[in-house]
């Protein structure tokens, strides 16, 4: 029971960290119908930004978010404006995959050139401290990640459903042509949404870098997990990403108790089984947008 409880706790807290990394991916898909497969390397880029601020400016990684979030936002806007905006017509989705892959390769190359291949981790004294709850040691960094995930996802929801800009986003999501006809600057909405999606990644990258060692290559392992999370949660559903991430990581952690070699298999088997029953994921696109 102790091991099971620890596995569930690890799954919920670790899942929240993955949700934080996947939130931007699902937001961008929900609004722009683009699968940003550069999301993995963007998480790694954000981790490196936090790492660099921590090592060179001795800035606490949490405070560093005040710098990394705006940087990532601007990067997202630039990418959308320079590359994604130009994609039109029926081939847009397929072309966007290629463009995002190219962006990922460029970022990876730049990170290799700047930081090399040696794995690094973000170190701060309180990251390794824990709180003892119900017999389990819960790491502060995982609790911080959980808190950031809840705050980020709540903030995105509030923005989408309680602000004028959120209405513009939802209108663009439902019908871009009609949105343009009623005076919404669709290009501006798309650029800012892409920027927000990438900005959220700054927090995910910081927590990822504090809970793992990473190098420029780490994005490849991440993107497959992040894609499976947003597909299971329902492409475009922010809350779905949170639930799916917790569900999948918890399943993986529980399998780890008995047979760790099967954990990764079970992770993807869960995805396949759920999709057989609900092809649109746990909170499929239509349901998510209807909320």
């Amino acid at each position: 029971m102790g091991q099971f409880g620890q596995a569930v706790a690890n799954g919920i807290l670790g899942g929240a960290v993955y949700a934080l990394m996947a939130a931007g991916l699902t937001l961008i898909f929900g609004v722009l119908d683009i699968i940003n497969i550069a999301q993995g390397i963007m998480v790694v880029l954000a981790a490196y930004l936090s790492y660099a601020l921590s090592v060179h400016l001795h800035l606490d990684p949490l405070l560093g978010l005040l710098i990394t979030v705006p940087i990532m936002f601007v990067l997202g806007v630039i990418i959308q404006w320079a590359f994604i905006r130009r994609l039109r017509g029926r081939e847009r989705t397929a072309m966007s995959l290629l463009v995002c892959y190219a962006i990922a390769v460029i970022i990876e190359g730049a990170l290799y050139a700047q930081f090399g291949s040696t794995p690094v981790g973000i170190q701060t004294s309180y990251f390794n401290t824990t709180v003892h709850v119900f017999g389990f040691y819960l790491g502060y960094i995982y609790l911080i990640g959980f808190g950031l995930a809840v705050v980020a996802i709540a903030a995105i929801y509030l923005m989408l459903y309680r602000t004028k800009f959120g209405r513009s986003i939802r209108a663009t999501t439902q019908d871009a042509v009609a949105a343009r006809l009623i005076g919404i600057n669709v290009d501006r909405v798309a650029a800012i949404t892409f920027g927000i999606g990438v900005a959220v990644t700054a927090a995910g990258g910081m927590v990822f870098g504090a809970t793992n060692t990473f190098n420029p290559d780490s994005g490849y392992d991440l993107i497959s997990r992040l894609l499976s999370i947003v597909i299971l949660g329902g492409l475009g559903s922010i809350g779905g990403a949170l639930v799916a991430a917790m569900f999948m990581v918890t399943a993986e952690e529980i399998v780890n108790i008995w047979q760790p070699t099967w954990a990764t298999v079970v992770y993807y088997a869960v995805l396949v089984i759920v999709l057989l029953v609900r092809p649109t994921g746990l909170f499929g696109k239509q349901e998510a947008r209807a909320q």
Partner: protein
Amino acid sequence: MTAHRARFLAVGITAAVLSAALAACSSSSTSSTGTAPKTPIVIGASLSLTGGFSTDGQAFMRGYKLWANDVNKAGGLLGRKVKLDIKNDASQPNQAVTNYQTLINVDHVNLLFGPFSSLLTAPTAQVAHRYGFAFVEGAGGAPSVFATKLPNLFDVSLPVDASTLPLLNYIKSLPAGQRPKTAAFPTSNDPFTQPQIQFAQQMLSADGIKSVYSKVFPAEPTQYKGIADQVAASKAQIVVLGSVDVPTVTAFTQAFVQAHYNPKVFIATAGPDQGSAYVKAVGGQGNADGVMVPNAWYGGSPNALSQKMVSEYIGIYHGTPSGINADVAEAYSVGEVMAQAVAATKGLDNAKIVAYLHSHTMTSVQGPVRFDAVGQNLAATAFVFQWQKANFVQVLPPGAGSTTVVYPKPVWGK
């Protein structure tokens, strides 16, 4: 119009085939008769410059380059400069196989050096064997590599299966009251780690130490924290971790620290041997202190060849002897051994090189090298190293040049 295009195409193809044939004749005559003595000797290798083994691959590249620079400064091999042709395999066995085929058939290299890791060495050695190349390598020491019984394979480093033996003997020698009672054996699903873990588990069990955790986890990055939490929950007094890289050891260390779990002995099969990269990743000296790793070389080795290499390495890359990745020495040794065989056979005939390597004892920065029929280095000595206050020191086997083992391992962060 169609007939004209077809004729044009036929002429073009014929010209291309003729050019290729002429190029091949030219290439083969050069290599077989040796009529171009001043052209460089090209040595091909595939290394993991990106991907999961990239830290090791980059260190190997430094070792190969350092050796090539030294050889060229001394006048080259057989009076010819040495040129390295290194291709990136992204840590993928299939890509490594493709790279060696390209090096042999397209780049027409004269000699081959091995890749990083047993996982990539086993399939690539087959390619080298098919084309009659001697395959000298420094990181393919798993039993599964030698089980192929290839006559062209030569591993200059320590065969890995019994690498932890000095530590196991030390534990056995402890007074009954101090000896640990329980051990945990988590290991990556990798041909390099599993034989070492199985060997340690059998030996410790035979000495009456109870195995309280023994599981294999996936080779690809996974949720290490849950696995490490189970090891911590087992309260094992010894942890023998089958790891291939720094991230795995770091993840276990971080989870152990968070669980306030301090085993008396913590040894990892790889990771702690990667110098300053390891110390930084685990969060500094406090989390590295007392951690052990088996290997055949360390930066403070009294071997004169090693001291020269260390001094040159620091001259180029800076740092300290303890901060040098052991992969650098493994790669450098590959070059040294190949150079001795080439010099002794006075040529680049790979068949003669293979015969020489099987029948002579050579020297390297890692110590003497003498191969058995399947390419294991019988002269290699297993050492166990330990991090002690930011210094990477040899602690076992005890004797001249060894530092006293710190046992039990200090509490994390102290």
